[in-house]
């Protein structure tokens, strides 16, 4: 399956969403063809993952325009789009979805972006349009959206750091298990849509 992952942040950005997307891309890339479409400049490379970026250092309208064009190109080839929330993704996504037939799933994982959308008429409108046109809306915890069916998929655990002064060795099995469950649920959605 050809999957496009859309994200406003990607390593070397330091943010949970950035590392989540890279980890997701690498794991998904083991069985699918994965393209990450991100805002960035010289993203970290990962085996089996194609990176396409729009330079974040350009003015807002230019980068939104460029991201829309890039997304239009990528979506022609993709079987499914998995997008992270945030106006910089939702706006191009809504525009492209009007013309392209590629279904997308929207993950509402960025609470700050949702708060901004609540406070702004324009951002709120963009978010509502993105949610309305999504095949599936994924939330990490139970959230109520009037008239919108959401699917709960817990975020995988953050990988514990290996610190030099802890007595016990780091147990990565729980972390791995959480990712396996996360990927399995996403794969089911990618295949069946619900």
């Amino acid at each position, binding site marked *: 399956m050809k999957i496009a992952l859309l994200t406003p942040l990607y390593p070397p950005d330091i943010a949970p969403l950035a590392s989540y997307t890279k980890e997701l891309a690498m794991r998904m890339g083991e069985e699918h063809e994965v393209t990450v479409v991100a805002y960035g400049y010289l993203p970290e490379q990962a085996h089996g993952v194609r990176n396409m970026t729009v330079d974040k*250092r350009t003015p807002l309208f230019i980068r939104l325009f460029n991201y829309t064009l890039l997304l239009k190109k990528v979506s022609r080839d993709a079987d499914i789009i998995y997008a992270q929330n945030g106006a910089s993704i939702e706006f191009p996504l809504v525009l492209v979805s009007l013309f392209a037939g590629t279904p997308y799933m929207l993950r509402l994982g960025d609470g700050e972006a949702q708060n901004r959308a609540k406070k702004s008429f324009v951002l709120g409108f963009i978010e509502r349009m993105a949610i309305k046109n999504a095949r599936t809306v994924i939330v990490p915890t139970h959230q109520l959206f009037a008239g919108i069916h959401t699917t709960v998929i817990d975020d995988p655990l953050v990988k514990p750091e*290996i610190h030099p002064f802890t007595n016990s060795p780091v147990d990565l099995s729980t972390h791995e298990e959480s990712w396996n469950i996360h990927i399995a649920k996403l794969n089911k959605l990618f295949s069946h849509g619900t």
Partner: protein
Amino acid sequence: MEHNDASTTWRTYRNQELAVVTPLLEKLGYALDQKQPHVTGERHLMQAITTAHGRKLILLGRRQRDSTRVVIKITSDPTGVRELLHERTCRRILSEIRFAYGVFFSPEELLFTKRGNYTIAVHSFIAQECAFLDRPIAEQFALALAGFKSQEGARATTYAHTKLAQRTFGSRNAEDYLRNFATFKKNILAQLSTDQVLPALLTQTESLLVTHKETIERYGGFLTHTDFVPHNFRIKDANIYLLDHSSLVFGNKYEGWARFLNFMLLHNPALEAVFVQYIKDNRTPEESLCLQLMRTYRLGEIIWYYTNTLKKTSGNLRSLEVERIQFWSTVLDAILHGKLLPNETRQKYIEARDRLRSTEEKERQVGLH
């Protein structure tokens, strides 16, 4: 007793300035301590390497009305004044920038004023329970790591951020690092033309930096304190207070780590080893490479710095600068080739340093780190 122009010039400047500023500060309600460690020893040699340093006095004292301990920066030198203003702007912007995920603490500003030709900045003195290097190593690690992660949280990667960053803190990209290193190399070799080891070492380093220019660029745009070493911060209640805001720049995120780890290789090699292992265990191989690149860059810079001081020094101090150049060249060789620095090399340098250091400088170093 050593006779050299730079030291004499500094002492003259210092004494003249103290004669003027002491009564000036008293009128403002501040009394100076008897001992002034920041205007003695090798302070006169210290200049920023890639930014011009103006002359200023950094003095310890007390606010007379309540005996609050203070740090006073005072200068009439135009470059020094610009630095104080710049540092003040950096402090303000640092506390305001909304994309900083964590904010460093800063000593409280008690006074910022101009009197005649003098610009005066007074901040509260942050008392520490003990020097950073006297803390248990696990604590040193945790505190420094928190400091680095806080810096990494701010990244100027949008259009608006880039403009703000450049206006306030200045920025460095891979081209800047390569250009700077080429300057270091050129100046070092011009002054040490008979050195057998440095030409090949610096050429290899330059070649490595050029080869991995993209890696340097990839990890750019991060807020980094380019002089993040214990004498530039203080710890109180497990919080890090930055003392020098003018060394903040948007550049490679491992430049600050590089300065810190090169410093610790000399002062606390166990901590240096722990950090190198932490990066290997928790970050990508490319980030380990980036750290190595920036360490070699900073080592080139420190060799350049000491090379530049040679003509300003004589006697024991000059001999000490020669030892430093030799030591840091050996460290560069080790970092460049991924080798461990033998402890004997480190000990031998420390013995030479302690033998050649002036009494005044030895006193200044007590409790500094």
